[in-house]
């Protein structure tokens, strides 16, 4: 049981370290250094925070939801620098501080939304992160799927589903409508 859980954690870590994100961020940074040094400094700090968090969460099975939210905000800051107004993210969570969740789950869902959908001036992507009546987290975005996306063996969501099942009977809910994609991630009471 413990071993199976560790294997899932390891797999998810492998999926988390996304070279694309790092190099695209560095590419934006090079421009900022020349055009807006102050913003560049801020960008470096946020990028460090994001990667430090990714590494720190290696060993954790669960994290407090508020830490996850802080991490998500940093991650969104970096993505907003890259995509500007073409990416709209609204985070409005009202949760009990003692609630826990699987680390990196929120960021993975936001990353998936960006990966699978068009993010352009003509078609901005709007992502919303809110709390459900039951204290879980709902992430939704408008659907405007890319025709072809980069490779993805689709392990992320399956992995998350299994990891959640170790801690709660509440399921990971995924609803795909004609114009919106919604995921409900259960939280766990510590």
């Amino acid at each position: 049981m413990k071993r199976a859980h560790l294997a899932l954690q390891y797999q998810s870590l492998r999926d988390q370290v996304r070279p694309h994100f790092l190099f695209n961020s560095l590419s934006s940074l090079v421009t900022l250094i020349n055009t807006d040094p102050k913003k560049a400094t801020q960008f470096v700090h946020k990028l460090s925070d994001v990667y430090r968090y990714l590494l720190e969460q290696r060993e954790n099975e669960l994290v407090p939801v508020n830490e996850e939210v802080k991490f998500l905000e940093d991650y969104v800051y970096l993505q907003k620098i890259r995509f500007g107004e073409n990416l709209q993210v609204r985070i409005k969570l009202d949760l009990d501080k003692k609630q826990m969740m699987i680390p990196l789950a929120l960021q993975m869902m936001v990353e998936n939304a960006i990966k699978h959908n068009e993010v352009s001036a003509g078609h901005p992507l709007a992502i919303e992160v809110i709390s459900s009546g039951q204290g879980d987290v709902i992430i939704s975005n408008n659907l405007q799927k890319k025709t072809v996306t980069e490779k993805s063996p689709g392990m992320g969501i399956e992995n998350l589903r299994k990891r959640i099942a170790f801690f709660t009977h509440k399921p990971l809910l995924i609803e795909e409508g004609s114009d919106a994609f919604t995921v409900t991630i259960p939280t766990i009471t510590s």
Partner: protein
Amino acid sequence: MNVVIIEDEHLTADRILTLLQGIDPEIRITAILDSVKSSVQWFQQHEKPDLAFMDIQLADGLSFEIFDQVRLDCPVIFLTAYQEYAIKAFKVNSVDYLLKPVSENEMRMALTKYKQYFSLSQGPPVIEKELLDSIRQMISSPYKSRFMVKVGDRIRSVDVKDILYFFSLQKGTFMHTAENRNYVIDFTLDALTDLLDPAHFHRINRQYIISHSAISELITLSGSKLKVTLLHSDDKEIYISRERIHPFKQWLDR
């Protein structure tokens, strides 16, 4: 010289623009485009530029789709954040690419390379449809569908369906095809484990990755070892160790 930049992240597009103008004031940027759709529209309405810089991942898909919809016979320098396997294919075909973040030095070298083609009679290379299709496949599917191999001075593309097994020998990695030929390839067996569809290929020991159709005989030996005989193979000493037998049987069985 007229140049088009196709890149969906405005900061990176700005970077390319600044670099180009700093290196050669003669360069005129005629358009900056961020999607497949807007690029197709632009190319339908304008004369072809002298050179195009093209990010692989665009706002609404992969830049290769532009080639499906318009005839693009200007040379292209691809921009990419990280696609190590796809990049190898560009190298083979001598089309240039730049890694992000793009350095001034690399940009200068790419432009020099581009200009050198003009001093040659044939002009800069135009990207072949076949190469694009194979790269597109590599990016959009999690598993490899073909391998590019060198035969003398020619490049051949081998479909994975025609591969019986992979093996390592004296630090080299080889693949053996159903036509009974061996080719040297650039990947290690460890790298191949991630690139091949696990439904079709299985790592049986340190030296071999095999497909179902490669097996000609299986013999159970004492000490719970298994001996494998492969088609077209002179190697009579291929064993599956005890700890690998269970996963191997599961793979055979599905």
